[in-house]
């Protein structure tokens, strides 16, 4: 019984080479960490009774679990990149503010 392994390849302008995702060895489940119910529901005292069905012990069942792992990997990776991008932006903004304040590079044209 050949197993069905999903795969993803990501590329972006700032990456020299593509990033490849595979589920890898280990335990895979359909209950992905990035596909949980919204925090709002849990924080309001709700419970999650809508978990996915467990994977059947079939090639497609395993595929569904492995694809869930792959989805988590991609979501976590991209979220991390988004955070870094945001940090870079706020560093940039800070640098701008610093320059404005310390180098008094602005406002000089506004004096009227």
């Amino acid at each position, binding site marked *: 019984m050949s197993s069905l392994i999903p795969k993803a390849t990501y590329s972006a302008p700032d990456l020299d080479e593509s990033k490849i995702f595979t589920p890898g060895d280990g335990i895979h489940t359909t209950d992905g960490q990035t*596909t949980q*119910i*919204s925090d*709002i*529901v849990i924080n*309001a*005292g*709700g419970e999650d009774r*809508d*978990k*996915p*069905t467990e994977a059947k012990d079939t090639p497609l069942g395993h595929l569904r679990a492995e694809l869930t792992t792959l989805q988590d990997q991609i979501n976590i990776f991209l979220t991390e990149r988004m955070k870094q991008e945001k940090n870079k932006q706020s560093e940039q903004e800070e640098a701008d503010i610093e320059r404005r304040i310390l180098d008094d590079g602005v406002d000089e044209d506004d004096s009227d």
Partner: protein
Amino acid sequence: MTVDLDQYVKPGKGHYIALGLEGSANKLGVGVIKHNIGPLSQTNRAEVLSNIRDTYVTPPGEGFLPRDTARHHRNWVVRIIKKALIEANIKGTDIDCICFTQGPGMGAPLQSVVIAARTLAQLWNNIPLVGVNHCIGHIEMGREITGADNPVVLYVSGGNTQVIAYSKQRYRIFGETLDIAIGNCLDRFARTLKIPNEPAPGYNIEQMAKKGKHLINLPYTVKGMDMSMSGILGYIDQLANDMFGKQPKKVIDEVSGEPITPEDLCFSLQEILFSMLVEITERALAHVNSNQVLIVGGVGSNERLQEMMKLMIQDRKNGQIYATDERFCIDNGIMIAHAGLLSYRTGQTNLINDTVCTQRFRTDEVFIKWRDD
């Protein structure tokens, strides 16, 4: 009636079976319906083989987000389909068509269900797909269950508020809400009061309203044949926040001198909203010269609304009110199967590229080929 409903019957068969999938809001429903050949009548009724529903319920004070609602539908849809097939005791080859809600409704939940419909249709030797307008589903199921043949339809739910009358192969909208739907108005007030969403927020408002005694003054906002409800909600929300917020303010009933309770607020909100519905429905009846009212949609199970409509219709000659119970008036899969099958029997099938769901889909866009009265 002269519409031929049997042009598309499978050779050698005396009946049709349709599977229906509904997921336009927070209910996921799958139903199986059977029609025998020939026009539907009191002696040839549609047969409900199964009607399974699972509702996404949120904690008190919270509405249902599209994301979590779609997640609910996705994670349940295969199990609910299977349950409906088991209860109907049918197999794939018995099915003539797979019907799905094409709109109106919430985008992500609609899409999560049509994905299953498309997959199943292709897996089982390309069973024809039939896209169904959700409102038409309510109307046709209501007519079939109650036997009301040509009523003015009051369609009241969490997403829709319409007064509808049939004319020349269209269900035409006589009056409707100009802003939020009545069920949405009630649900949102339930959230303001933080009352539970189980089994349904509107149901809990109804129970509280039964204990209300004092009618408070609320704006009455009928505009022509249409009505507006957001202003009323804003007004009563403000009142509730004043009464039960951080610095509670006592509000006294002017006549009795007794304090106004949350039950009074629920009572007053229902009375004002339902009076507006009664007024518009009464005018529609006069306009089309009908004496039947059919109430469909989730709010249609409200007994006070049914009672108020009844009082109005009793004044008309042979006036009759028709309503269904929660199995059929709350969103369900069987109504999609039924309306879809009627449409299939007059030739509708959707190619797979023509199965895209749409959040906006007006009731009067659908050509009612199966009626010619």
